[in-house]
């Protein structure tokens, strides 16, 4: 079974600084997808960034980037120039494409609460 581990329950960062959230996962698969989702106080889950395992290049979306280390099964999220609006719970997630055991199953970590301070 696939598992996703986020070892940092809470983090804080000063506005305009950079912060990195950690995520590790366990799988025997070679092809899969990884995601970071954000859940602000409104509770609405929002996709931040997506990585395809067969792509070596790290995904980037504006101030958000990932460090994907496939061999180490590590998928960290870096937020640059942190803003107050980045305050939220961040979840790392894993999905295996259709086919075989656990195909299409979307699994989440326990989450990291990020607080951006002014």
């Amino acid at each position: 079974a696939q598992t996703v581990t986020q070892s940092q329950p809470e983090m804080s960062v000063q506005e305009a600084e950079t912060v990195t959230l950690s995520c590790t996962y366990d799988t025997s698969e070679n092809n899969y997808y990884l995601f970071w989702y954000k859940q602000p106080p409104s509770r609405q889950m929002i996709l931040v960034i997506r990585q395809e395992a067969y792509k070596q290049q790290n995904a980037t979306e504006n101030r958000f980037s990932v460090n994907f280390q496939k061999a180490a099964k590590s998928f960290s999220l870096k937020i640059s120039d942190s803003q107050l609006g980045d305050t939220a719970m961040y979840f790392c997630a894993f999905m295996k494409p259709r086919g075989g055991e656990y195909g299409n199953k979307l699994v989440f970590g326990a989450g990291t609460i990020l607080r951006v301070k002014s």
Partner: protein
Amino acid sequence: DVKVTQSSRYLVKRTGEKVFLECVQDMDHENMFWYRQDPGLGLRLIYFSYDVKMKEKGDIPEGYSVSREKKERFSLILESASTNQTSMYLCASSQSRGKAFFGQGTRLTVV
């Protein structure tokens, strides 16, 4: 605009009641998911479905069942609600390679 709609935002039910949580998506997605979210535990998968009438157990299916008679609708059923099922319930849908879209969540309280 894409949408996943959950039937209720807040719900209060009595112990032993049968509870239905409904979720509808308008994106023709093949996959639909039900999670419960509890502090410190993240999102735990209850059930998911990859096609009409197809369902798979997630990590915590005990005490729950699901129904997917139409592609756009995925229902979560608590056959006999108990207080330990008090939680936030999130529905999501996705394509197999794509991002998941979430509903606004249902905060269920069982008294």
